[in-house]
């Protein structure tokens, strides 16, 4: 008997174990082939939720349609090809790192920074925002159809100001109710005002897409009851923006507002509209932390968490302080794939630069920008011709524009 057991165990160990610990249950995998699938996540982890979404995109049957709904803890999600230094106030992400005398801490605790795999701009997620994802075959895909589905879900809950705009976002019109325009059209409401800038509609949902050969993924946010609307602008306004020239997609900012609907009501309504659209009555399956066990989900999570993915996927940009009249040492850095590739440094002579320029300080060339935790350390010794005060000021400027990311030790400037 004992011999039999140990023989079995060694046999099991020698091949890849196929227990639940390494793989999702067979039932879950079978469900990936169902023509209509509906999932809801119990996890608040943005890395996990995005990885589950990506897993569903890659593994669900090519002709199937999938709905996934999830809510994230406070986090900032940037688009696939965006620049975190340009889009986000990185200094605010770690509340212990910023200097309290300059700005009031928003009090949100640590906020994650995540680069997603779909395109588009930067969004702020928190528990008052529900994210919806629909994955469908590429050939049936249009950019509006699922936004229209969500608008119908909102209208079912009594939100009749909601409509899809030309950018495929969902907005709430702010005008007075006009009895002459009444429609079932998801692209117009009775509250639209014809004048251009009287009461802009408030954006409540933005969309992004990822298109592969066979599958199209459309996901969007939905601001239901975020308590953080006032604070979001601080996070999404980078002090470095005026000084940067960058390639890549910039975010388009719009006034936002809360719909004021509970998460549960919204989720139920979207699931119902999805079921109606695809003629299916099935229940939504819960997904959550147990999916971390699955190899490809975990690998996806790890990739999303890695600084290489978050920072080195940044398209080329350069930052220059020449337009800032308060600094007197010119600095320009070009950053390619998150790595400092070239630049120069020099003192300004009576408002006109060019007289005393040197190349990049030696320690900076080829450095990953997110690895730099203290500008003082980097530049301190490498500008001998420049006075210590000026160097300190320059470093302070750099620290404000390109702060070290979360989790890195940094030195403060007083």
């Amino acid at each position, binding site marked *: 008997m004992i011999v039999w057991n140990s023989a079995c165990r060694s046999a099991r160990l020698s091949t*890849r174990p196929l227990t639940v610990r390494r*793989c999702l249950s*067979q039932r879950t*995998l079978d469900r990936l082939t169902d023509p209509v699938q509906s999932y809801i996540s119990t996890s608040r982890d943005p890395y996990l939720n995005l990885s589950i979404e990506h897993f569903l995109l890659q593994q669900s049957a090519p002709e199937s349609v999938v709905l996934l709904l999830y809510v994230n803890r406070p986090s900032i999600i940037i*688009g*696939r*090809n965006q620049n975190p230094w340009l*889009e986000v106030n990185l200094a605010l992400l770690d509340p212990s790192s910023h200097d309290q005398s*300059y*700005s*009031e801490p928003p009090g949100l605790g640590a906020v994650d920074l995540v680069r997603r795999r*779909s*395109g*588009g*701009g930067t*969004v702020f997620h928190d528990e008052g925002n529900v994210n919806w994802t629909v994955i469908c075959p590429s050939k049936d895909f249009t*950019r509006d159809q699922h936004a229209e589905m969500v608008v119908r879900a909102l209208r079912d809950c009594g939100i009749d100001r909601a409509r899809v705009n*030309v*950018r495929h*976002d969902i907005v*709430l019109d*702010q005008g007075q109710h006009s009895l002459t325009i009444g429609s079932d059209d998801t*692209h117009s409401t009775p509250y639209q005002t014809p*004048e251009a*800038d*009287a*009461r802009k509609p*408030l954006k409540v949902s*933005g*969309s*992004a*897409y990822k*298109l*592969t*050969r066979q599958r199209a993924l459309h996901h969007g946010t939905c601001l239901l009851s975020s308590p953080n*609307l*006032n604070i979001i*602008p*601080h996070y*999404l*306004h980078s*002090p470095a923006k005026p000084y940067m020239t960058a*390639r*890549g*997609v*910039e*975010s*388009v*900012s*719009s*006034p*936002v*507002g*809360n719909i*004021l609907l509970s998460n549960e009501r919204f989720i139920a309504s979207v699931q119902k509209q999805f079921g109606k659209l695809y003629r299916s009555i099935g229940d939504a399956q819960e997904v959550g932390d147990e999916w971390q066990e699955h*190899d*490809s989900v975990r690998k996806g999570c790890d990739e999303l968490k890695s600084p290489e993915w978050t920072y080195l*996927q940044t*398209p080329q940009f350069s930052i220059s302080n020449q337009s800032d009249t308060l600094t007197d040492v010119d600095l320009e850095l070009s950053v*390619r794939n998150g790595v400092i590739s070239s630049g120069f440094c020099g003192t300004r002579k009576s408002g006109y630069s060019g007289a005393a320029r040197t190349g990049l300080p030696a320690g900076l060339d080829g450095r990953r920008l997110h690895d730099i935790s203290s500008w003082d350390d980097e530049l301190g010794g490498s500008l001998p011709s420049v006075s210590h005060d000026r160097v300190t000021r320059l470093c302070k400027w750099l620290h404000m524009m390109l702060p070290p990311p979360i989790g890195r030790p940094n030195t403060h400037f007083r």
Partner: protein
Amino acid sequence: MATALSALRYAIRSRTINLHYTALLKSSQYRAFHVSRRVDVVKPFLLADIGEGITECQLIQWFVQPGARVEQFDKLCEVQSDKASVEITSPFDGVIKKLYYDPDDMAITGKPLVDIDIQSEISEEDEAKLAGGEGEASPADEGEAKMSSGQQEMEAQGGAEAGMAEAKEVKSDTPRLAARRPTSKSDHGTLATPAVRHLTKELDVNIGDVEGTGRDGRVLKEDVHRHVSLKSQKPETPEPSAKAPKTREDKRAPLTPVQSGMFKLMTRSLNIPHFLYTCAADVSALTALRKKLSGANKSTEQKLTHLPFIIKAVSLALQQHPLLNASLDTKDPKKPELVYKGAHNFGFGADTPHGLMVPVIRNVQDLSIVEIAVQLRELSEKARNNKLAPFDLRDATFTISNIGSVGGGVVAPVISEPQVAIVGIGRSKVVPAFDENEELVRKEELTLSWSADHRVVDGAECARCAERVRSMIEDPASMMVNMR
């Protein structure tokens, strides 16, 4: 389970690679018999249209390098355009020879993306994805979805959502006088001490609105108080009527892809000396004929507007006046050439939520009026849903603008290079007129406005064509005797 599947897939894949090798060896020894065409040459693979009339997108990353062997459906690269990130896969088996872009470069739709040494049989439609002889012209040169001028514009307007709140309070349903946010703020604009922030909350003011006069642009208490007193002087008009003069702010916006395309095309059209020739046609007979036909056919699909009739009439007239269907080639400014086009490919303006698009009905000379109507309907539908392919937008030889669906009498339409003429159709209206017995009758009049390129078309030629079209419209029966 998943691992077993992937192991199986790997085994199959390695076997197919072996098969390829043997096939290559065989072909070098003797000619094989193939039903479909076999291509053993390096060809450029073009970047296909990814929708939305987008003509440029940014290359994010390559999944292959020159020398890499790819199979059909292997990923080549990922590109990004405003909100969509798209994976481009290879339609063929083969070897990658050359990459045309570096990461972060803007890749242009319809231009080569990679050079691929094709080692599989390819179908007709796959051939279309390759370049012909010289580099393919941008797919929609005749239509409206054009290359945007400069990547700066493309990237600037390509951005998508952001959670940036623009000075609005949390409750979205309390109508507020829109707080006018200054368009350019200094970085330090939201600096303020906690005491000042508390004051702004108390007074229900958004700190972003207040202009700071303190050090580094900080907002001080006096600034907040001053802002409040200024605000209270502004008239509180919930109705956006013109009674109370409000300071209206300018709004800058980069051009949308459709607008950029239009900008570029119309800038080129500035070189064309246009002349305008208008004539009014009596469409009473046409309207009567349409009513009769619609009455006979109960289904709404068969309902005909006057546009298909006019399109057919123009096509018939162009057979007698082929100059107006020609294409002006000014590649060599010293030796301009006219290319008299065999096919009548008519572009027609379609008003979509994204702007003006010009889908093309091909070979109008071979289509009946009903078939033209069907094409119009299908293409308009596609345009509205943004489903137009580059193929639908190019190769137009003549354009018809039916601005009359919106309104207008006499219009002066703009010719799209390299065409030499265009006709704009106004809105039909009922007018009083005199008949041959000098009695007052009711007439329905429609104005046709012809623009032509005076470098190659003279007024008389255009006028003759226009009059021919007019007589055919006024007497639809005369169209019938000329139709093939």
